[in-house]
């Protein structure tokens, strides 16, 4: 029994039960079901993990009361909380404002979940696990991901609420600003690997130096820079703190979600996490070696588990950021993108090109390659950063 190929064997066993004419259908249905189940559960436990982790960051306990029905003594540290939340969300009254555009108001949560799920189709979850093998997987991923902002705008417009409308405007501004650095940060990877296929990119990051240092993209200067830009853009694309402007609680009540309640609200919530998970999955694939193990001797752990561990790591990092940072203002948000991230990403593009052109530098030239590549990243970072924060510094004060 090989753990690595176990999911495939299971799938094949089930598919073989059906007549050959139906097998392709069952095959895909099974894949979709597995993705929905695994990531549905992943979403459920991400919500509780987020609440628990945030609570711990804030020196609280977090939700710990939801147990099992009929066993009131059994608290289980509250891990059944998401199911209780789901029941609550389903049983809550669905309120549609009288003035709302009913069709858009209804379509928005449906579409946002649909769009945010599309990205999962091209993520290589394991050595042999990829739902759809597309040559232009990256293009497909970004096309599908960008559509979610459209749904947010639908929600904001359809609610007929001033706060929602403001949030919708912000969401669009944010989308336009951050789509660019997000894609630009990915291009060096494509250049270096020479492919748009996520499977090939993940495979390209295989191998270790001395069996310990993995050849992940994040451990190169251009890759590191691209990863940071990717992280920031991911935060912005998935509307998470510090870029949670569309649902800025302290300013716009709940932004585009103001007029949503019950299950529709839960759907938005779900879509947000799906989007975050998908983008994190892409980040793992592109920069953190995908399903590759970090050390040679750790290869006995199945590749799909490595993928999930890295994914969880990304999510935890996002939660940590959310627990620490404050929100940018909309003009600062766009300024950060256009005046900082986009130029850096463009320079990094050149950096990627340089790296792609110099794979045959050996001996002392390796050091030069690294130094040049690092300089291309660090110098503009410092200079642009200084310009971005000009005139802003902690002050000293006098006393009377």
């Amino acid at each position, binding site marked *: 029994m090989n753990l690595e190929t176990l999911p495939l064997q299971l799938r094949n066993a089930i598919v073989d039960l059906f007549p050959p004419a139906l097998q392709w259908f069952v095959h895909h249905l099974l894949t979709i079901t597995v993705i929905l189940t695994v990531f549905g559960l992943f979403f459920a436990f991400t919500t509780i993990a987020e609440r628990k982790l945030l609570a711990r960051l804030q020196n609280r306990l977090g939700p710990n009361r939801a147990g099992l029905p009929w066993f009131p003594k059994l608290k289980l540290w509250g891990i059944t909380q998401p199911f209780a939340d789901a029941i609550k969300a389903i049983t809550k009254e669905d309120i549609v404002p009288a003035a709302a555009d009913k069709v858009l108001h209804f379509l928005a949560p449906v579409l946002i979940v649909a769009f945010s799920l599309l990205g999962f189709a091209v993520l290589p979850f394991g050595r042999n696990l990829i739902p759809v093998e597309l040559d232009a997987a990256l293009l497909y991923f970004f096309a599908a991901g960008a559509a979610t902002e459209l749904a947010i705008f639908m929600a904001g417009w359809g609610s007929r609420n001033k706060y929602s409308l403001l949030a919708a405007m912000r969401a669009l501004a944010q989308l336009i600003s951050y789509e660019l650095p997000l894609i630009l940060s990915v291009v060096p990877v494509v250049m270096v690997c020479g492919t748009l296929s996520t499977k090939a990119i993940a495979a390209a990051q295989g191998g270790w130096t001395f069996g310990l240092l993995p050849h992940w993209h994040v451990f190169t200067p251009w890759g590191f820079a691209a990863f940071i830009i990717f992280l920031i853009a991911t935060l912005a694309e998935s509307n998470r703190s510090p870029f949670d402007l569309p649902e800025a609680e302290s300013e716009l*009540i709940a932004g585009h979600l103001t007029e949503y309640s019950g299950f529709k609200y839960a759907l938005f919530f779900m879509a947000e996490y799906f989007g975050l998970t998908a983008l994190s999955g892409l980040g793992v694939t592109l920069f953190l070696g995908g399903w590759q193990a970090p050390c040679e001797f750790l290869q006995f752990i199945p590749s799909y588990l490595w993928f999930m561990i890295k994914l969880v790591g990304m999510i935890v990092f996002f939660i940590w950021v959310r627990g*620490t940072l404050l*929100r940018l203002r909309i003009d600062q948000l766009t300024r950060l993108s256009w005046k900082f991230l986009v130029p850096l990403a463009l320079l990094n593009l050149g950096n990627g090109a340089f790296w792609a052109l110099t794979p045959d530098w050996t001996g002392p030239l390796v050091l030069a390659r690294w130094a040049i590549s690092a300089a291309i990243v660090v110098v503009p970072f410092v200079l642009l950063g200084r310009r971005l924060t000009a005139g802003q510094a902690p002050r000293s004060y006098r006393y009377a």
Partner: protein
Amino acid sequence: MRAVHDEFHGDLLEVSMGPQHPSTHGVFRMVVTLDGEQIVKLKPVFGYLHRNHEKIAESTSYLSSMPYTDRLDYLCSMSNNWAYALAVEKLGGLTVPDRAQYLRVIMAELTRLVNHSCLVGFLFNDLGTSFTPLLYAFREREKILDLFESLSGSRMMCNYQRFGGCRVDPPPAWLAAASALVDNFPRFLDEYETMLTGNEIMLARTQGIGPMGAAQAINAGITGPCLRATGVDYDLRKVDAYGFYPRFNFRVPLGAHGDTYDRYMMRILEMRESVKILQQAFRELPAGPIMDPKAKLRGFRPKVGEAYGRLEGPKGELGFYLISDGSTNPWRYRVRPPSLINLTLLEELCLGRTIADAVVILGSIDIVLGEVDR
């Protein structure tokens, strides 16, 4: 070249922020007219929490108003108590024993810690953190509230001061606990400042936002940390030298820009000074009675006359103006609410800025609606 918005000239959007809004600190309401996200007009609307505290006080005895003062600025009941007691003592010519004077300073400075730590916490919530700084601040505040509870019986509605003294004498164990807490307080401040004061987003969101000029602030009657952020050296603890404040060594921090960041830093620096005052107070606290033996609890009838007692509350100058007609009830009882008057410049500060800034400016002014609406 023409400005872009001339070509896309659209309608203005009027948004009623509040009275139910996460960032209006209660039931405050701002009617905001927006051009895009920019504020072109802002009108504050008050009165959702109005209960005519002054009228109630004019129809009850002097003593009965004391618990109501707790509910003005419900974060700072101890200071409110003291301000009212100060006015009544001035009206009735009462004296306060030394120990009670020290206790009052201790309570007022602990209240300042409570208020300022709440304020900086809420300010960061307005700035968009997910409650983390607020909860760190609340953790410290809870410890002080526990002290208040074990001394006065209530966490927030302390009802502790009396005319001519204080109600309960703290036992040595309480003083030791309070002293230990105060000694540990700077550690919290350090942690807090490491976490946020140097944060780039925080600097971008607060520096240069809502700057107030010194002359403008004086004319508008802005008091407290908001005034000192503009660089005006006016702290009633020094100017009026009420209570035993002249006996204490402390400095008054002054800002230079009068913007949101300065207002935030004034609170942080004042907390550090408060810690010094408290440490000195715990060192020097004398033994003795805590009530003026001449002061009567019931049936207090001051002579005909009037008095205006004011002190440096955490939010600014808190004043009580009392007119006595010789009966047991005040003829006129007036609260000078710093929260309300500090809002005078709100519109000026917010014009031309975005909604996000308006929320932060409001947060940095520090209002409590119990006091604004009274």
